[in-house]
């Protein structure tokens, strides 16, 4: 596939890249190790054997059903990470994925329960509905930013609260929920029609959600758009420097709006794996907090589709195996602590690694310059 002029340049570029990849990997690995150490210390000070806790998690993690659960969970987490990362790549902090996916899942569940078309129309329809709702909700923040200059951090946080209220308003008997619910005490939409169920792979460890394919596709398209299209270039350029991008003819306002909408549309997908593969309805106990988790996952994955895949798997593994901890007498909150520490550590580690890389680069350039100067001086002396 590679053309010949490319290969000629490659060796030099590759060596540089190798070092960069190493440095890039150093930060997350450092962060994870550090958080393991901190959590072990925490467990040890509370008088519990930390190694047994990790052993419990790993033993369970090697079982087939735990692996399937991890992959299923990672599918959701991956979408959350990618949705947030899309904004991050442009320096847009979409804190509102939380509200966007809740609203999107609610509407998708409602439409899925009302409409019963053949699967090949029904499922795309639900995907589109969810993306539309998520996109529109995020678009509000985008419009506010480009027209009134409202910081998207503030507006998306506010929109989260409003989304919760809107869900509360709509998810009542007679509106989005059936008038007489089958269960007492919990309100939920009608179950979505059978044609809305996404395919799943039956493994020995349980059913593996087919949505993992959608998540992988989203990752691939994400990478393609960012690196192979004009839009992706504009987006990254705007992310680096808005004024420079503006000067080179990028319509910054339009970029802000589009990327906000795209980020919201991706966020709309977050709730769908669970909706189309597991619960089949949207209820009051639909998993909250995925939007915020997405921020942590994107941060750990350095906003790259591959990095996010690894961090989603790690977070999914931690969450899935944490359930076993109480049975061994450990508080499962230790995993929440671990995730939090990872996020803090990763920010610090990235900065440390960045400085280290910068210093190395400076030294290298300095050494080269010194060598040049020395060579020049020699020449002068000999002349």
């Amino acid at each position, binding site marked *: 596939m590679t053309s010949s002029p490319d290969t000629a340049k490659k060796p030099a570029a590759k060596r540089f890249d190798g070092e960069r990849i190493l440095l890039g990997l150093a930060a997350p690995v450092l962060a994870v190790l550090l958080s393991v150490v901190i959590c072990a210390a925490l467990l040890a000070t509370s008088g519990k054997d930390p190694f047994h806790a990790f052993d419990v998690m790993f033993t369970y993690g090697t079982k087939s059903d735990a692996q399937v659960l991890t992959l299923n969970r990672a599918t959701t987490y991956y979408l959350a990470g990618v949705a947030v990362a899309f904004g991050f790549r442009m320096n847009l902090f979409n804190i509102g994925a939380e509200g966007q996916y809740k609203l999107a899942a609610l509407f998708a569940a409602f439409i899925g329960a009302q409409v019963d078309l053949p699967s090949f129309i029904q499922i795309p329809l639900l995907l589109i509905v969810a993306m539309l709702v998520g996109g529109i909700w995020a678009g509000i923040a985008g419009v506010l930013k480009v027209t009134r200059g409202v910081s998207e951090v503030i507006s998306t946080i506010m929109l989260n609260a409003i989304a919760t209220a809107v869900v509360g308003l709509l998810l009542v008997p007679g509106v989005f929920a059936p008038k007489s619910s089958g269960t007492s005490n919990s309100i939920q939409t009608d179950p979505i029609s059978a044609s809305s169920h996404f395919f799943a792979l039956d493994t020995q460890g349980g059913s593996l959600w087919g949505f993992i394919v959608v998540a992988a596709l989203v990752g691939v398209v994400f990478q393609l758009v960012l690196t192979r299209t004009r839009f992706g270039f504009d987006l990254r350029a705007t992310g680096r420097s808005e004024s420079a991008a503006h000067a080179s003819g990028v319509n910054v306002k339009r970029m802000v709006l589009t990327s906000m909408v795209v980020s919201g549309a991706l966020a709309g997908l977050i709730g769908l794996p669970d909706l189309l593969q597991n619960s089949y309805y949207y209820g009051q*106990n639909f998993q909250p907090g995925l939007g915020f988790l997405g921020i942590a996952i994107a941060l750990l994955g350095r906003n790259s589709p591959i990095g996010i895949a690894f961090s989603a798997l790690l977070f999914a593994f931690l969450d899935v195996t944490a359930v*076993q901890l*109480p049975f061994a007498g450990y508080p499962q909150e230790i995993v929440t602590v671990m995730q939090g520490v990872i996020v803090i550590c990763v920010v610090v580690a990235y900065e440390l690694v960045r400085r280290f890389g910068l210093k190395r680069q400076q030294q290298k350039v300095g050494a080269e310059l010194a060598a040049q100067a020395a060579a020049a001086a020699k020449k002068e002396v000999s002349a």
Partner: protein
Amino acid sequence: MRRSMKLAAVVLSGSLGIASLAACGAKSTDTSASSGSSGGSGLKVGMAYDIGGRGDQSFNDSAAKGLDNAKAQLGVSVTEAEAKTGEAEADKETRLKTLVSNGYNPVIAVGFVYQSAVEKVAKDNPNVKFAIIDSASATQPSNVTSLTFSEQEGSYLAGVAAALKTQKKHVGFIGGVQSELIKKFEAGYKAGVASVDPSIKVETTYLTTPPDFSGFNDPGKGKEAAQGQLDKDADVIYTAAGSSGAGAIEAVSQAGKWAIGVDADQAQQPALSKYKDHILTSMVKNVNVAVFEYIKAAKDGNPFTGVKNFDLKSNGVSLATSGGHIDDIKGKLDDATKAITTGATKVPTAPQS
């Protein structure tokens, strides 16, 4: 960028690889020794709590008390696990499955959030008995027993007490989350107040609306809401809001008015005992009684089935008498109790508005 495409392909195939690995690995449930059978050393009872777990000063704690009683008096062996904030539905299923595969039978799930998880796991394990507290569904399989409570009947008595104690003919109700469950409290309370004197005004405040469930564990919100009702001149305030109630009780007692607690006898809780002179009574929901009775019935080989409701008559709900603040109106409360238990008074389960 081509390389990143290749990497993406590697990740994709890698994940599929893991998937196929998963397909042939051992399942966690394979390793369990005794599955389903209730062993030689008596009954093994598994309990899955909602968020908060043991020590939440509310209904999880009450369930834990029932479990402890069963352990002490019936000699059953127990294990317990609690939920994590913001966990996925799958985590609840895993928790129940792990209990089942470790041979626990019956398995008790505390809280309506477990409804669909219990249904799913119960369908896969028809030989295991399940109980779920505070929830029932038309679709649940026959090995699931619902343990529900007539909160409205206890709240009715709380309403009667409030109406008899108010001096300004103005009382208040604070609900944690505007859910179907808490509306039962509101309905009973209002009916109780009206039964004494229909002209008494009732303030109603809900801290949050679903899906925001923070109203059950935010004492700050409780305090604020209580202050608002006190400012409107309400002088007896009933709070059904989990741990948010502590804030409301604090505000009410600082104003020198009457508070009514919920779930457990709140005047006896260490954290709230300093306000006990202002806690009129508490609408006690005896989850412990339900849990104990359920385990006892299971041990005797005569387990409950279907929906088992614990009402005023079966001591499922009651008013706390510690402090003696309601001793002077005991006669009227007993009359109201009698009217309910004999069926003369029907307490509504949904607020009339």
